[in-house]
């Protein structure tokens, strides 16, 4: 077979393969794994949402929708954002329905960046912001956050990484992989810096409903921030709808119309059946969603207590469904720890450095798993640490 890789663009080649991918191959070859390595709910989508999708298909809703998404869905989204973060968006031209938050992030970076513009990415964070910036010919700049700060982005640290080329700041709270949140006071401390340096904020709020203590706040709700913030959200986490690939972005109409342009040529529109399901989720999904959130909170308490009993230090995550303990006492690096834990105890957790180099020395444990699986995993991790503890 010919080596065709020379035809692949240098930009794409410059992106390193995902650290999670490598680990995925390893886990897939192992039998009987208890996986705390997933990034999605363990619930199936609530039945009333699935059923509404069936009904829409039966009635023949199988066609394109307007590029921006069904008007009813955009109206429900605008109403939801008003309730949730207290910011008003016009359903007509300030809401765009996308293929998950992932597409929204990609669109925003493509629309905002000139070649060489810098994107400030607080890490550890979800894996796609930095590659997204590279693909849009921008330059990702990692901004570290630390466990002693409960992974909040601190203004004095942010300022150190700002240059004249800084254009976009990513804020993703509640955070994957740490479970950290930023409350109103924490965000307030960033507002002046954002304005002073004329930054645009990509606010990925996909985990906002999964806030167990404190109250979710959006940077868009602060005076003067609405127009310089793109609020992104979706249905994957709160409504257990990851496979439906449905999300949205709200923001100033100039940004939304630019994103709309890219979206119409690349995606056309989000699938109509997912849009129909999303309408049902926003109209009638709250009760089941809150039940799932209560269940995650129960499990959060179990895993936190378990981790502390086996000697792994972990700050208390107040959002999402992850915790991010330090593995310092094992004396191992993140990847070595995860590989050995998988081989010896068949428990899968994700190396923290997959979410940025500042995550080295930590692992991500997802607690969207049954209580018995969590308890078994903790017991096995405890056995592992008894053998490997150095400190």
């Amino acid at each position, binding site marked *: 077979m010919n080596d065709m890789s020379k035809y692949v663009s240098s930009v794409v080649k410059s992106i390193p393969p*995902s650290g*999670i991918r490598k*680990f*995925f191959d390893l*886990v*897939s070859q192992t039998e009987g*794994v208890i*996986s705390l*390595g*997933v*990034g*999605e709910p*363990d619930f199936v989508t609530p039945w009333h949402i699935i059923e509404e999708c069936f009904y829409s298909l039966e009635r023949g809703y199988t066609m394109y929708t307007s590029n921006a998404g069904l008007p009813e869905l955009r109206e429900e989204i605008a109403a939801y954002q008003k309730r949730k973060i207290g910011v008003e968006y016009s359903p007509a031209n300030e809401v765009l329905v996308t293929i998950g938050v992932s597409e929204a992030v990609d669109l925003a970076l493509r629309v905002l960046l000139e070649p060489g513009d810098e994107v400030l990415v607080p890490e550890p964070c*979800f*894996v*796609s912001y930095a590659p997204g910036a590279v693909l849009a010919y921008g330059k990702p700049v990692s901004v570290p956050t630390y466990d002693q700060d409960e992974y909040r982005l601190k203004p004095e640290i942010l300022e150190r990484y700002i240059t004249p080329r800084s254009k976009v700041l990513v804020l993703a709270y509640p955070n*994957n992989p740490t479970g950290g949140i930023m409350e109103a006071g924490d965000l307030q401390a960033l507002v002046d810096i954002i304005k002073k340096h004329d930054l645009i904020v990509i606010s990925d709020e996909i985990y906002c409903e999964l806030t167990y203590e404190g109250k979710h706040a959006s940077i868009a709700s602060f005076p003067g921030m609405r127009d310089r913030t793109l609020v992104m959200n979706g249905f994957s986490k709160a409504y257990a709808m990851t496979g439906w690939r449905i999300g949205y972005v709200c923001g100033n109409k100039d940004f939304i119309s630019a994103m709309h342009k890219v979206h119409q040529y690349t995606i056309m529109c989000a699938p109509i059946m997912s849009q129909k399901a999303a309408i049902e989720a926003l109209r009638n999904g709250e009760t089941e969603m809150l039940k799932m959130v209560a269940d995650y909170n*129960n499990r959060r*308490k*179990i895993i936190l*207590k378990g981790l502390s009993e086996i000697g792994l230090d972990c700050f208390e995550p107040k959002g999402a469904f992850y915790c991010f303990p330090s593995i310092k006492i094992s004396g191992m690096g993140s990847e070595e720890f995860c590989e050995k834990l998988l081989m010896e105890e068949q428990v*899968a957790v*994700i190396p923290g450095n*997959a979410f940025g180099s500042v995550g080295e020395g930590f692992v991500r444990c997802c607690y969207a798993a049954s*209580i018995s699986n969590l*308890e078994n995993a903790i017991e096995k991790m405890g056995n592992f640490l008894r053998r490997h503890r150095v400190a």
Partner: protein
Amino acid sequence: MDLEKKILTLIENDAKMSIKTIATILDMEESRVAEILAKLEKDKVILGYSTIIDWDKIGVDGVTAMIDVKLTPEREVGFNRTAERICRFPEVRCVYLMSGTYDLSVIVEGKTMKDVAWFVSHKLSTLDQVQSTVTHFVLKRYKEDNFVFEEPQQDKRLVVSP
């Protein structure tokens, strides 16, 4: 009271949840959880702990029937005395007073159809207050007490995802 409700909600669908787990979730001492559980049992708020079993799966045959019963109510006690009498039969699993065209719904379990038929003809329909019975045999159980039989419950998620 609030704590009692929280504990009951946790064990409603998982009677085997350990005291330690309950204590962790509710941020309480284990001894306090044990105390509350003991009190709930003593007060008969918790009547017992049963197991939902798919007997078919291990080849144990059985028959369940739902019987609609029409009763003649009695002065002062209404349907209660007869209902309580029916409850005493060991083959009776559930007894409900119903609105609508009949009065009691009685769920009966037996080893064979003959067992159930014998119970209805000899024990139930011969009670003085029983005017009539209609017996429906259960053909297949799909869901019971929140649990779905034959549900493909394995986790379909990728083992690792970002």
